[in-house]
């Protein structure tokens, strides 16, 4: 079996002090792992530990040297005013606009801040997806998504991911049930 893209063992993470853990999980190529738990339990803090903006207090966190990372945090909304087309956004993320679903392909030439809330959020998520990063971190990506957008994202996550692994924070049970290969309960 190949080396996991990401492996956490007895990981405790936080800011001034630990707020979550110890928790163990791993993400391998081709799988979607979901961190699940009540609001405030520290799921985003765990993602923060992977990204380096929260501290690891104990345990270990290893990322494969081959695993370049793309992420979309819960707070990473697009600015209210931004003169950038969807095509420019995807290109900025080093993605290929041609791989976008037709739903987004049709509005690639539009400024992202002129799209509907759901389209804007999906365009942002898909910009992260469209790149070549092997490890994808998504924090509550279904926020603001309309049912069509949510279904498109679920279709992608359920499809063949190839060499890519996904670590997902999500509190929507139906979405989690549809896309997760494994669910890690965080308390």
């Amino acid at each position, binding site marked *: 079996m190949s080396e996991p893209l990401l492996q956490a063992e007895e990981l405790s993470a936080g800011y001034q002090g630990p707020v979550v853990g110890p928790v163990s999980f791993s993400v391998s190529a081709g799988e979607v792992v979901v961190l699940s738990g009540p609001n405030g339990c520290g799921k985003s803090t765990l993602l*923060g530990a*992977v*990204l*380096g*903006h929260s501290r690891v207090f104990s345990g270990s966190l290893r990322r494969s040297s081959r695993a*370049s*990372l*793309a*992420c*979309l*945090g819960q*707070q*990473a909304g*697009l*600015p209210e*005013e*931004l*003169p*950038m*087309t969807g*095509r*420019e*956004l995807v290109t*900025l*993320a080093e993605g290929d606009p041609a791989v976008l679903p037709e*739903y987004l392909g*049709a*509005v690639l030439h*539009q*400024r992202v801040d*002129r*799209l*509907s809330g759901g*389209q804007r959020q999906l365009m*942002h998520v898909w*910009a*992260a997806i469209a790149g070549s990063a092997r490890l994808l971190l998504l924090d509550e990506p279904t926020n603001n998504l309309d049912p069509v957008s949510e279904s498109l994202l679920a279709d992608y996550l359920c499809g063949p991911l190839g060499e890519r692994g996904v670590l997902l924070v999500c509190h929507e049970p139906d979405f989690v049930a549809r896309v997760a290969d494994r669910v890690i309960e965080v308390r």
Partner: protein
Amino acid sequence: MELLFEPMFRVPFVTGLLLAAVLPQLGLLLRVRNEWLAALGFAHLAGAGGTLGSLLGAPVLLSALALAGLGVLLRGMLRMRGNDFYALMVLAGWSLMVLATSLSHHAHGLGQTLIDGQIYFTGRTHLLASAVFALVLLPLLPRLNRWLLHLRLFPWQDQANGRPVALRVLCFNLLLAAGVALAAMVMGVMATFALLFIPAWVAFGIAPGWRGACGWASALGVAAYLAAFVAALLADLPFGPVLVALLVLSILLRGLPLPRPVTR
């Protein structure tokens, strides 16, 4: 009209034109970073540096650049982000500038020039420094755009992938401090701030995309500059306030109709 073609105005004209073309590009990036107050902060600090230099008998332009550079270092050392630090910079710079101007007649004259925005005292040193600044900035702009947009729209990703984010931000801040200090010495504090703030703001409102915004910002900066230079010279008005007034009027362009968003 002959005034426009007087040799003595050529150096100020070309110097200002260079700055009017490139400064709005930095303004776009400041807006992306939500740090537009930095333009006013560095301009005040540079003004303080210039008047302090004049007071102490040091080269004015170098003193302005040095104090603006010190602002970048302080920002890095204090690890402060956003407009709070730049607001402090505005206040500290203004206080230092006014105090320095009160202590010597020469410094007072310089301080008044910085407030009035008289571009006509620009010399060959300013022109040379502006040309070097533009030559350094222009090849770096595509990379600065990519780095800072990526940092804003996909936060933490570059750090997690081991990219030198702090170095990139430092590079931008140093270029910004140098450009603003230089422009403040050439055309005054408020004209510099207006060139960084308004064209970018208008471009954000009306451009169809990022490339369009880059084009709009520089075009607006240059158009306002050309109109202000001619109007100020012909009507014998101080250049800075004329430029600022024209730029303020240009915000009417934000009312231009935009393509309707696609809703599906």
